[in-house]
């Protein structure tokens, strides 16, 4: 009852979809990649290294805002930075999506989907209780 689909059924599903979409472009996923700007940054860095100010400009952000995003990506080891003089240059990190990160994200995704469905069930239950005259909650 933990996350069975993740380790078996969902895995097969992933394989199945992989076959269909393996050519698709690099775009976004797990934890650090849930944010569109960070996905964009990685896409950009796949093409070429860039400084934080380059990236800030490209994504119409402040330096501080971009530095935060880079910090998140750096922590996930998706991006590496190197300071030369006054310029901090970003490049793709050593680790892309390793097995653990992939597992963790799939795990979260599985539960997020379950829990969203549970929300619906709970709304139904609340509605029924209200209809039956019982005050829900407090």
């Amino acid at each position, binding site marked *: *009852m933990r996350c069975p689909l993740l380790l078996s059924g969902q895995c097969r599903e992933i394989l199945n979809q992989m076959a269909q979409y393996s050519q698709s472009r690099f775009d976004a*996923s797990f934890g650090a990649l*849930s944010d569109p700007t960070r996905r964009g940054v990685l896409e950009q860095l796949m093409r070429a290294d860039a400084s934080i100010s380059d990236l800030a400009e490209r994504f119409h952000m402040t330096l501080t805002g971009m530095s935060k995003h880079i910090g998140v990506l750096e922590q996930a080891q998706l991006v590496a930075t190197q300071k030369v003089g006054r310029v901090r240059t970003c490049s793709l990190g050593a680790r892309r999506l390793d097995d653990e990160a992939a597992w963790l994200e799939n795990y979260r995704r599985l539960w997020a989907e379950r829990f969203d469905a549970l929300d619906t069930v709970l709304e139904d239950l609340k509605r029924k209780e209200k209809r039956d005259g019982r005050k829900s909650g407090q």
Partner: protein
Amino acid sequence: MVEKAGNEPMGKRTISERRSEREMVITRTFDAPARLVFKAWTTPELFKQWWVPKSSGATLLSCEQDVRVGGGYRLEFAHPQGGAPMAFFGRYLEVVPDARLVWTNEESPDGAVTTVTFEDRAGKTLLVMRELYPSKEAMDIAIEGMDEAMPETFEQLDEFLLTLAAGTPGR
């Protein structure tokens, strides 16, 4: 080691965290009293309505839950790719109505023990789920389970996951 993955739309975040070498923790808040969340978790007719993610393509064939200390549960799934149904089963170690459930996962020899707590917070419920593996090795095996199922390299998996998140392609 702590790794986090988060961010859910509409402020209804499901947060997962690898809390230690052998423990995963997931938290989520529901807009309903703990009594109802517990009910949805322990009543098979309700449980069936939310447990199987649509994106998995799997179908829940049967669901038995004997929710009391020492009672068992058993879930059987069918998958569109066919093959024998997969069964997941275990026993309830602790049952505190509207507050706490602890169960074993016995389909694999080194399965985790899962603890779910339901905390009432002004009519909402904070749910915390922990999966504690017997050892670091057991958790690594669970993680590697995914690896083994992959005939291709992880680069391809990277691409696939990234594509999925980019807009969940139609099937």
